[in-house]
């Protein structure tokens, strides 16, 4: 049976609050990373506070609609980013959020590999009918990674976000179960 958590370059692992919080606090100081990944204002929290948030998620065991992972390299097991899936149990829709905090791993296929892994997980383990995500127009690197994994552009909310005094669009992407199945089949229905 196929290992759901192991890709070509990375694997998906459990979150370890202490380490994750330390990394996250460091990544948050990189405001380019923050602005690529998020639409909020940048903010700096202590690793103590971030650890509390992560632990709070685990307090009552796992919630059935939240699937947080850490992304680690297969090469040297380095923690390079995070990935979260939110499952809408009623409509079988999964929302994806991902960030590669370690800059030296940008643009080398690590993110794409993690996205491909989580699509398999969403469709084959969570029973998703579709997976959705949003990406800033000023983040073409992420957009291309999502396209490579099979996502299609479904529209843009115009002038949604304000960065550096300029309003930019948010792009919305989705992939359906049938589309993903076809990709596994080498494009054949």
């Amino acid at each position, binding site marked *: 049976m196929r290992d759901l958590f192991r890709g070509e370059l990375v694997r998906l692992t459990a979150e370890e609050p202490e380490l994750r919080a330390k990394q996250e606090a460091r990544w948050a100081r990189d405001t380019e990373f923050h602005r690529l990944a998020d*639409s*909020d*204002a940048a903010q700096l929290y202590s690793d103590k506070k971030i650890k509390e948030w992560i632990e709070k998620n685990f307090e009552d065991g796992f919630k059935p609609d939240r699937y947080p992972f850490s992304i680690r390299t297969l090469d040297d097991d380095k923690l390079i980013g995070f990935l979260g899936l939110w499952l809408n149990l*009623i*409509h*079988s*829709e999964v929302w994806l959020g991902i960030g590669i905090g370690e800059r030296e791993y940008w643009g080398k296929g690590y993110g794409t590999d993690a996205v491909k892994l989580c699509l398999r997980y969403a469709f084959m383990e969570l029973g998703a*009918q*579709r997976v*959705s995500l949003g990406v800033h127009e000023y983040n073409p690197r992420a957009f291309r990674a999502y396209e490579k994994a099979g996502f299609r552009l*479904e*529209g*843009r*909310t*115009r*002038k*949604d*976000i*304000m960065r550096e005094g300029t*309003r930019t669009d948010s792009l*919305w992407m*989705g992939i*359906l179960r049938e589309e993903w199945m076809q990709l596994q089949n080498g494009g054949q229905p």
Partner: protein
Amino acid sequence: MFGIATQLFEGQDIRFGPIDYDKDPEIEAKWTHNAEFMRLYAVEPARPISAAVVKKQYEKLEKRMEEEKNFYHFMIRAKADDHLIGKAEIQRIEWTNSNGQIRLGIGLADDRCKGYGTEAMKLLLRFAFAELNLFRMSADVPEYNEGAMALLKKFGFVEEVRRRQALERDGRRWDLLVFGLLKDEWQSQASA
């Protein structure tokens, strides 16, 4: 067209008001027993809710409004007899990006198609753009809610995103559409 003397919460036949804890829970509880209304108003599963629980939801909602400060909630009432017609909300406001989402619901079929929704939308958009100073408003609409789409288009909303097969109801998948309206688009149609 508008001045500071133009009342924000007064329409022609309707007005926006706060929650009435004595009267509203019974009425809204009745709405929730109407599956059609629930399916038009929300993508969460329709479920009948008792007046006591509706009252608790109101308390929770007002507490959230007070603490989170990123949404506004109004009850829509008829000016003629003050009866509760529906609800109007601006939610998920991102202050740094000046955007938010609108949501509007008319509880009873009897109160639909009387122009109340149009009046409520007019008040809600003026509140969003001229009082909250937001730059863009979005609205999520399932493809089967034709009434909502017609109302949004009337106010100049543009269909921006079609999230394919995002909803499951009645044994089939439906698209979820996202509409958007920008401040300058609102200004030009409001003054026309």
